């Protein structure tokens, strides 16, 4: 506790310094953590940065003095003053010793933070994350299959309760990174990794894939939405429902079009014949806040643009260009915008 306290004091001091040096900058996300796990790492970053800065300045001072110090000029390069040599030898020996001590100290700090970071959490909510090129499948598993829900690219979590993400991949290696929550972990095909964090206050935390995973690695955003337990529960219940039936004639035509075209081969809409498993689950598409793994904010206009020209917006994405007449597109939008 004391360690953490002093880390915080040091952190605050350095943060003030940084703000003075970089006026107008907000602190970088990794240094403005919103979870205890993130704070443990941020404290460590501050400690290391502080110590390393001090060491760097001392080395430079030594270098500067070595260069500019006044000195006698012996003519012969091989004529060394043995007394001065021995003195330098002692100084170097002390410095080497100090280096060793500092390095061991930093190692101990690191081990302490590591224990704190990876200690198993009791009563954690487990969420399965499966990486795909280039989106995230999010599954809230339950032994009771009627309580299992699937969504994509946005993770809703309750505040105050530890959340463990079970990470794996369906294709290549990805890496899950939401810097204001905590560090990253890889999603590796054939393996399972986990990552635990406890969100402390409601909010939206953005992150992205950190391991290069192919053409659209840049557009593989992830969003964590932390909510009060009651909001989370409401969201969960709403997501467990089957898709809302189309509310208008146009939306009905949209649904028919969806089910008869290529869309249904890849996307699932619960409660309808569309049950593709290749792309994101669209049962509650309209309840999400972004499109195509954070490529666009969610809205009717953006959805229209995405359906009309996915390869222009996210070249290489698995979503093909589907030719739709303007009225077909409109019907499709009416249908999809109703999938709250």
């Amino acid at each position: 506790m004391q360690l953490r306290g002093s880390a915080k004091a040091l952190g605050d001091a350095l943060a003030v310094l940084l703000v003075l040096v970089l006026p107008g900058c907000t602190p970088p996300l990794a240094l403005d953590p919103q979870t205890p796990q993130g704070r443990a790492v941020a404290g460590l970053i501050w400690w290391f940065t502080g110590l390393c800065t001090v060491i760097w300045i001392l080395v430079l001072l030594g270098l500067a003095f070595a260069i500019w110090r006044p000195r006698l000029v012996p003519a012969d390069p091989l004529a060394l003053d043995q007394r001065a040599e021995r003195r330098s030898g002692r100084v170097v020996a002390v410095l080497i010793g100090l280096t060793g001590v500092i390095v061991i100290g930093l190692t101990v700090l690191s081990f302490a933070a590591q224990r704190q970071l990876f200690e198993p959490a009791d009563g954690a909510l487990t969420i399965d994350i499966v990486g795909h090129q280039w989106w995230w499948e999010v599954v809230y598993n339950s032994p009771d299959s009627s309580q299992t829900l699937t969504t994509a690219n946005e993770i809703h979590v309750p505040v105050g309760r530890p959340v463990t993400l079970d990470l794996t991949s369906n294709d290549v290696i990805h890496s899950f990174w939401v810097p204001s929550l905590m560090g990253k972990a890889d999603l590796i095909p054939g393996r399972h990794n986990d990552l635990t964090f406890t969100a402390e206050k409601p909010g939206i935390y953005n992150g992205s894939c950190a391991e290069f995973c192919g053409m659209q690695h840049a557009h593989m955003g992830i969003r964590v939405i932390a909510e009060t337990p009651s909001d989370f529960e409401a969201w969960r219940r709403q997501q467990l429902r089957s898709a809302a039936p189309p509310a208008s004639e146009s939306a009905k035509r949209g649904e028919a079009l969806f089910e008869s075209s290529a869309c249904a081969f890849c996307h699932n809409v619960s409660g309808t014949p569309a049950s593709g498993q290749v792309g994101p689950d669209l049962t509650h598409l309209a309840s999400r806040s972004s499109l195509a793994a954070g490529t666009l904010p969610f809205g009717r206009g953006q959805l229209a643009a995405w359906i009309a020209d996915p390869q222009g917006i996210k070249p290489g994405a698995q979503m093909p260009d589907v030719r739709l007449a303007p009225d077909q597109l409109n019907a499709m939008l009416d249908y999809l915008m109703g999938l709250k």
Partner: protein
Amino acid sequence: MSFSDIAANRGMRDTDMTDEELRERLTRTWATKAGIWGALTTVDHKVIGRRYVVTAFVFLLLAGVLAIIMRLQLAQPNGRLLTPELYNQLFTMHGTTMMFLFAVPVMEAFAVYLVPLMVGTRNIAFPRLNAFSYYVYLLGGLMIWVAFALNLAPDVGWFAYAPLTETSYSPTKGVDFWAQMITFTEVAALAVSAEIIVTVFKQRAPGMSLDRIPLFVWSQLVTAFMVMFAMPAVMIASSMLIMDRLIGTHFFTPEQGGDALLWQHLFWFFGHPEVYIIFMPATGMVSEIVTTFSRRPAFGYMLLVLALLSVGFFAFGLWVHHMFVTGLPQLGASFFTASSMLIAVPNGVQIFCWIATLWGGRPVFKTPLLYIIGFIVVFVVGGLTGVMLASVPLDTQVHDSYFVVAHFHYVLVGGAVFPLLGAIYYWFPKFTGRMLGERLGQWQFALLFIGFNLTFFPMHILGLAGMPRRVYTYSEASGWGGMNLLATTGALILLLSFALLVWNIVSSLRSDEPAPDNPWDAPTLEWATSSPPPPHNFDRIPVVSSRYPLWSDPETLPVVSGLAVDTRELVLSTITEARADVLDTSPLDSIWPLLAAIATGIGFVASIFTPWAVVWGSALVGIFLIGWFWPKGTAEDEI
């Protein structure tokens, strides 16, 4: 046949010969023939070394231009300059070229040119292998760049993580070209490392005992050993990859019992030592330059050698710190935290020794020393961020972010390119017989220093702000625009700095003013001969009785006589004491290395398209190797 007969058959000896006649005869014996045939058959380590240096610098400039284009794309959010395909090819080609076609080869190039001169011998060991290695390297570099020009470049990053590199996710031939480029350059690197080890072991001037070997040579020796144990890992990995892709093996496909992390283990078992393979020769350069310009012996010679040896050893125990977020067992990860932190100690030892050398000497501020001072300022930052990355929890935040991009550029540009440029200014007169301009050199240094820090320092903050590496664009909302613009500005200043270097080199080469033999009053043997050296390096082989022979006696060089002048002959010495032991011959010029390299190249490239090329390619190379080694009846071959 008795030994005296052999001595007679190798022709005239140099005993009692006048200096002029000796130089003329030796030049005739050792010179590269004029014309294109001479150029293709030469085995002179200086000619090959110079080609190696120039080729590596061309690759540096090419990869640098790619970096500038990437920086322009990233200068502002939602950049539209490049498509994602092209951006991904650019960063892959940038990293691949910088690591495999510039950084490692350029350090080898300096070894090929300088080690024989610094140990006082007439040519490198296995000079034909040396020529072969250069051609193989050149062909590998040409292959990948031609593939790039044909839009067949790899686009999977320089460490090419499986399974992204498997055919299912990378169906084009780009990855195959990448994997074979690895094979080309590793064959070249392994050959050079064998030559360097044997040159240092067996061809040192009489009297150059182990404790009198110049620090640069020590650094190249340790590096050569590291190459020998590190490079097989990446060759095995890239061969497995290409077999997965071409003949359907399953090394990295989890569905059939393979494992994606096997690639990472093999790659980083090579990849981490690789960093030291690049950095260690640079420390050798630093030691030489600091010594010369401090006008005193290096402080803590023994300590520096021990530091090299321990870094060389421990570098093989760190690779897992590249894999801290792959979900390895915590205990194992902790071990690698400790080992990665501890390697800071020998690196610290080196820094302290160099500063102590400057402290106890009287520094002369010529351009080479400026780069070394810049090196200490910049490299220490990279070393310290390296200590940060060694911590598992800290690494989970900064891994694969721009923080890491900043870190390794501080280490590799700060730790290797700064000393390398210092070395260029330092040895340029020896390589070419011309001095580089001091004033231009200082301007170049200033621009390099400013441009470098402006480019890469902001990346630390970008990484902490959540910017992952290898993204071709980013949104405005991310707030990363300002720092990126700053970095791009810095990159343009860097470009200007390198333009000045090119200008400096061109104008120096065109000037008529010859460089003196020893312009810096340096203490090691390469400065005892002319600038540039004659084909046989030394008219008579020096005898060494101290660590700094040219400071021990600045006027007269003690030498031995009794070597053949009509046959390429050199002195073999014993390993520890360097007692003169055997007079051996050194191979004549030959076209076979080039032919064998071409055959090797054909085999490697063809195997991308048909696995059978491995079979007939090997047979082809075998035939050329027999031609290479078949005795030709010359004195060098037979007696």
